[in-house]
């Protein structure tokens, strides 16, 4: 009993262990997995996020005219597992450390993020595409002689042709 009294005295001297939230801000680590957010500029619409999403919180649905797609995340069925962020190839969807998710029952359907993300036309064939994010293109084509500015505006098959043509031109000029 005496041993514990010692601990008790120490703890009393230390003062309260709890945080004074909401009177003071609560400490939140940078890595805290809070509400997700999408950067529509980086999204390529590959759908891996909704494939791995265990809460079924993400909907990616093209509009009728097929000129773009609606990207919707409903926060209330997101289980904050971070799989979408992890598997997203362009890191378009990320997690903030915002944990302030409490809301009134009436507001539940407002707890969502929605973006309409338009398609571009492929410079080669006109197929609807999303711009290949430049930071990703620089990595993919780091050792390739292609023009990054041009290649990101092409669809995957036109990109393949363009890369092959460029390689062919180079081989012709340096035939060793």
């Amino acid at each position, binding site marked *: 009993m005496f041993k514990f009294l010692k601990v008790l005295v120490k703890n009393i001297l230390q003062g309260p262990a709890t945080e004074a939230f909401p009177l003071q801000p609560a400490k939140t680590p940078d890595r805290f997995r809070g509400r997700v957010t999408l950067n529509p500029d980086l999204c390529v619409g590959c759908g891996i996020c909704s494939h791995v999403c265990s809460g*079924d919180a993400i909907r990616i*649905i093209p509009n*009728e005219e097929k000129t773009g797609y*609606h990207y*919707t995340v*409903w926060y209330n069925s997101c289980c904050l597992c971070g799989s979408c962020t992890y598997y997203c190839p362009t890191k378009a969807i990320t997690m903030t450390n915002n944990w302030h998710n409490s809301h009134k029952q009436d507001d539940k*359907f407002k707890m969502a993020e*929605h973006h309409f993300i338009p398609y571009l036309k492929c410079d080669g064939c006109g197929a609807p595409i999303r711009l290949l994010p430049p930071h990703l293109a620089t990595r993919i084509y780091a050792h390739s002689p292609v023009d990054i500015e041009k290649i990101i505006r092409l669809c995957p098959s036109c990109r393949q042709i363009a890369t092959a043509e460029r390689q062919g031109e180079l081989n012709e000029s340096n035939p060793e």
Partner: protein
Amino acid sequence: MSQTRNNVFDEIKNTFAQTDFPPLTWTTNNYNNLYAWLKLENPSQLTEAAKILQSLQARLCTITAYTEDRSNAAKQKAIAYHFAIHDILFCVTVQIYDKETLEPLAVPSITPYFRNADWNEREFMEMYNIKIIDHPNPKRLFLDERLDAGIMTQLIPFSSMVHGTGSRNLWEQVMLEKMGYVPESYKAALQEPEFTKVEETKKEAPKPQTEEKE
């Protein structure tokens, strides 16, 4: 491989070589853990296998009942018994239906040899409607007596039961809040949510019992 493991490995191999059972298959993983697989021909061999495993000082890890095929949920069932002998995992699999008629066969209880098979056997009795012979304590484990046994082969997700309407309404509400209207393509795409697609491909998918719901 350590000396003890070699001895245990030899002992298992020799013991089973003297029986009429089909030959064991051995596999290993990236961490050098060893796995033995035994496929019995019919459930009546189980008692004999249990006796041998008991003599090898096996510990029963668990028992898994399963249906062999996604599309044929109710009929072809099998059971996998998982044992640990020293650091070796030993899996005994047996199909519990008649190979020609597909009629289900009853399974002898191994609780007399492995005390902790009690709960496992009771669980698959109620979840998969498997008949057990001579179980010492054959009452319900998790399921209420009023529910039919075999629920794990009948159960369908709630979203499939209501044809995904719950999820459709939800997303329409979200779009209403965000855009003020529900895009037509949204309505069409939400007809069949991702989650329920498997159910649709089932040949003999159990029909949702809507009248019971009401």
